[in-house]
């Protein structure tokens, strides 16, 4: 503080001093005159006695000087002058660094939001998430409510276990249901101890009553999130205790509002409302036990994750063997598969976001690595440019050193100049962050894009600080120290570069690594782009272009709703046919796997006997343009319980029946009447699973029912007619989505799209930066060698020879760098291949194309300075220096 005060005081103090010295002299003169001396003589005597006024003022001023700070102010002034004098150099340096900084921060904030940020609850580190591994599918599943209840009773490592089942739904504000009213919300059904286990308080009202969640008559209550309460009720506390929420056609009483800032345990969703999990029974009376839930637990103090995992696995295994013992009717295969299930525990510190994390964790880190590479290239560029500039100022710096300027002082000035560029770049970079982050989040589901919490926190600040520190070190400090080291004795050397060979080596090394990084990024970009093309061009088995999918909330009476809505949709002009199915398969998120055993056979214990089930409405194969390759499609009268028929897909027919015809065979008691072409089920990447289609019969009940429409009209044209047709049919369930099957298929490629487009983007950026680096390095080298080139021209070298010589000289590090880049991608090809589809990580076409693109760009960047050099006038060149 004192330093600041002194800084401001100093100026006033100097003015005072001047006035004071003047007053002093006047007084002295006056007293001398009074003593009888003539005025002129008195003035002279006074000045003589006082000494040199200017020197004394300087000495007094020095008292107030703060050498470091003063020099710094001067340096910043210098630095700004440099920016003004070489705007092109400064612009390139600043903008490439700014891009690098911006995308790095953006990628980090997304990683932070999805993977690192802890839940805003008490001691999040003590939370764990349960998952279940099934032996045959190797998939990670959530548990059932039944398992949750059993684990709670059989384990002792946890303060408490909670169950959570999130979903998208439609909610109405008010006391009575209104047809087609309501708004989309994210909700969760949770165990009644949910808020207690998490340690989340209520802003208003209470949480759920501590009841047995499986009791016959669940509490008809709802807890709202603080944000939703503010948004829909304006923070009106009087709604607590009132039945003002209608959900799935039923009224609920708001009992409380969760603490501000708590958005649920899903990192990629913002929950608006919580219901007790027991409310499942209101809609589906016998479904609670099998309901899929995420189970989280809070470890007792002193219990480690490993201890808790062992405890849970023992408890789960005991539960399984008890149940297997109670089911004597199972065959061996089923029993073995059942007993092979295992639970696993992982940290729940950051909440849950399974699907997003499964798909994006590695791509995000890959992205982080590539943007870090881009930043490195930019740093190398700027470092090289600054080094070059310092070298060009060797003479000036050497003179200053000779005149007594300290080396530390010169380093300080150079660092200040470079740091100013970095500061400007950092500001530009920060300004770019929202744009870059928006681009990345554009590939995530819309809900996740808004829910992911990307506000800066301490981790982000630490990341930015570490990054800027590294950049300052690499770009500002090292070049400054390096370039002043060899400065002593440089004065006599003039423009001849004493450390030439070493400098050239450093330049070539920088250049080579830039080229290596950009070739690697280009190859990776090429691989990802071709992967995406392969996936998009894939034959999914159904027609993506002409199918529209309408999603509707279902419920207990889904069959009736579906049978009312489908014919209503078929009356819309331009709709050729309509059908319905559950949100399982046809690239919907979930899958329904079930035992499929040919009647009369006893499969071996190791045999794969599961298949994907799909219950479909009339005209399903016709509407989705899935050909029936043998037998027939479903027709009226096939519906259970009147008939028991099934259609299987080609994969199942081949694996189960080989060359014999499956028609007329029975699977699980169902008569196979047809074989449908293979279609993708939940993912375009995976081959079609064994599939068994059955017609939707009476008593079908699903939470969300999907209607497929075959039409050549667009979504925009059809949205209005679809909603009108559903309302006219007297159905009050809300429509939650209308999308094309193509869009649904493309949404499953979010990861591939993200990787392909961002990798191309960063690959091109790296290429441009490397070319700028090559151009800069070469221009500088050529300028330094004007004399040499002039001499060679004077001795009879031709221009093409000069150009060729320079191109070959600089081609060497480029070629070596490219080879290193290719080697690097081959080295990580195993890692890459997991993200690729339809081609190898060592795909020669892609690598060749990347090297070719880089070679052409590098040649163009190198040709310009080489040509300029060859145009040197020998006479002028020889006279230089």
């Amino acid at each position, binding site marked *: 503080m004192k330093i600041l005060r002194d800084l401001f005081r100093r100026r006033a103090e100097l003015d*005072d001093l001047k006035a004071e010295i003047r007053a002093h002299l006047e007084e002295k003169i006056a007293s001398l005159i009074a003593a009888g001396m003539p005025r002129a003589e008195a003035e002279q005597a006074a000045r003589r006695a006082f000494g040199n006024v200017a020197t*004394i003022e300087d000495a007094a001023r020095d008292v107030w000087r703060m050498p470091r700070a003063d020099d710094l102010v001067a340096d910043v002034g210098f630095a700004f002058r440099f920016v003004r004098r070489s705007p092109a150099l400064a612009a390139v340096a600043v903008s490439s660094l700014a891009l690098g900084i911006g995308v790095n921060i953006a990628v980090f904030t997304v990683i932070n939001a999805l993977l690192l940020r802890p839940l805003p609850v008490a001691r999040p580190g003590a939370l764990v998430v349960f998952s279940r591994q099934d032996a045959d599918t190797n998939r990670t599943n959530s548990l059932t409510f039944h398992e949750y209840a059993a684990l709670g009773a059989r384990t002792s490592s946890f303060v408490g276990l909670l169950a959570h089942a999130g979903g998208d739904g439609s909610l109405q504000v008010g006391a009575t249901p209104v047809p087609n009213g309501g708004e989309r919300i994210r909700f969760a059904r949770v165990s009644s101890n949910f808020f207690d286990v998490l340690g989340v308080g209520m802003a208003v009202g209470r949480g759920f009553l501590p009841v047995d969640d499986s009791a016959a008559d669940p509490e008809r209550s709802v807890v709202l999130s603080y944000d939703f309460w503010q948004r829909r009720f304006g923070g009106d506390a009087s709604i607590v205790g009132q039945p003002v929420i209608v959900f799935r056609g039923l009224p609920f009483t708001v009992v409380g509002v969760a603490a501000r800032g708590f958005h649920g345990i899903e990192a990629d969703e913002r929950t608006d409302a919580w219901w007790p999990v027991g409310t499942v029974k209101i809609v589906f009376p016998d479904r609670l036990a099998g309901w899929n839930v995420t189970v989280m637990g809070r470890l007792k103090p002193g219990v480690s994750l490993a201890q808790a995992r062992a405890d849970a696995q023992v408890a789960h295994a005991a539960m399984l063997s008890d149940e297997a013992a109670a089911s004597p009717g199972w065959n061996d295969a089923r029993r073995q598969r059942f007993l092979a299930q295992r639970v696993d525990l992982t940290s729940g510190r950051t909440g849950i976001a399974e699907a997003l994390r499964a798909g994006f964790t590695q791509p995000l880190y890959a992205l982080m690595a590539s943007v870090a590479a881009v930043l490195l290239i930019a740093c190398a560029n700027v470092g090289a440019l600054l080094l070059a500039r310092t070298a060009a100022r060797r003479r000036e710096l050497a003179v200053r050193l000779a005149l007594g300027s300290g080396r530390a002082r010169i380093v300080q000035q150079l660092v200040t100049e470079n740091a100013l560029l970095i500061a400007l770049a950092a500001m530009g970079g920060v300004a770019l962050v929202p744009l870059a982050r928006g681009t990345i989040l554009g590939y995530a589901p819309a809900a996740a894009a808004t829910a992911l919490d990307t506000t800066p926190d301490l981790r982000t600040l630490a990341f930015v600080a570490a990054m800027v520190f590294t950049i300052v070190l690499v770009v500002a400090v090292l070049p400054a120290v390096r370039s002043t080291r060899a400065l002593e004795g440089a004065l006599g050397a003039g423009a001849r570069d004493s450390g030439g060979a070493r400098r050239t080596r450093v330049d070539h090394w920088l250049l080579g690594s830039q080229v290596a990084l950009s070739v690697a990024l280009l190859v990776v970009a090429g691989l990802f782009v071709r992967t995406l093309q392969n996936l998009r061009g894939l034959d999914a088995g159904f027609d993506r272009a002409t199918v529209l999918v309408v999603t509707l909330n279902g419920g207990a009476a889904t069959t009736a709703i579906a049978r009312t809505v489908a014919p209503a949709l078929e009356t819309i002009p331009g709709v050729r046919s309509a059908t319905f199915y559950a949100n399982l398969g046809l690239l919907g998120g979930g899958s329904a796997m079930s035992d499929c055993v040919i009647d009369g056979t006893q499969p071996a214990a190791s045999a794969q006997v599961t298949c994907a089930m799909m219950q479909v409405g009339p005209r399903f194969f016709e509407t989705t343009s899935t050909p029936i390759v043998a037998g027939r499609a479903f027709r009226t009268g096939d519906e259970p319980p009147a008939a028991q028929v099934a259609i299987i897909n080609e994969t199942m027919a081949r694996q189960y029946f080989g060359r014999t015809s499956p028609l007329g065979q029975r699977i699980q008691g169902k008569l196979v009447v047809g074989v449908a072409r293979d279609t993708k089920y939940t993912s375009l990447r995976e081959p079609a699973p064994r599939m068994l289609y059955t017609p939707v019969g009476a008593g079908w009940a699903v939470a969300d029912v999907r209607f497929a429409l075959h039409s050549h009209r667009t979504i925009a044209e059809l949205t209005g007619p679809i909603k009108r047709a559903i309302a006219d049919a007297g159905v009050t369930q809300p429509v939650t989505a209308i999308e094309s099957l193509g869009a649904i298929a493309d949404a499953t490629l979010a990861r591939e799209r993200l990787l392909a487009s961002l990798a191309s983007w960063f690959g091109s950026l790296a290429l441009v930066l490397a070319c700028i680096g090559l151009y800069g390095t070469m221009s500088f080298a050529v300028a330094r060698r004007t004399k040499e080139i002039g001499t060679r021209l004077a001795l009879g070298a031709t221009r093409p020879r000069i150009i060729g010589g320079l191109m070959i000289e600089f081609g060497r590090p480029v070629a070596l760098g490219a080879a290193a880049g290719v080697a690097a991608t081959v080295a990580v090809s195993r890692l890459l291949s997991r993200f690729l589809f339809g081609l190898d990580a060592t795909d020669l076409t892609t690598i060749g194309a990347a090297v070719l693109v880089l070679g052409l760009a590098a040649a163009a960047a190198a040709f310009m300075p080489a040509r300029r050099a060859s145009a040197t006038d020998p006479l002028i060149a020889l006279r230089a220096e």
Partner: protein
Amino acid sequence: MTRHEPRDLFPGALEIMVLRVLQREPLHGYALVQRIQQASNDLLRVEEGSLYPALQRLLKAGLLRAEWSVSSTNRRVRTYSLTRAGGKHLATELSRFEQMLKGVTQVLALRNV
């Protein structure tokens, strides 16, 4: 009366004298020079120019404060006075100075044996 050549002062001497004189009464620069000379019976002569950097140092250290006022000769002058910190500083400096003087005197009092 023969006039003694004024001597160079040891470092810090000027500051102590300035503080001591100002402890008695606030003075402006010119009067300060006059007073020191007068008090030392003209044995010491203050280099007028060196006074001002010394005053600036003392100001910066917070031992003095300065304010503009009008002198008895009706001039605008800058009058210096001691701060509380200046008083304390003077006390410790005086005792240190006396210690030093005592030491010097004892050394100089050595007889030739």
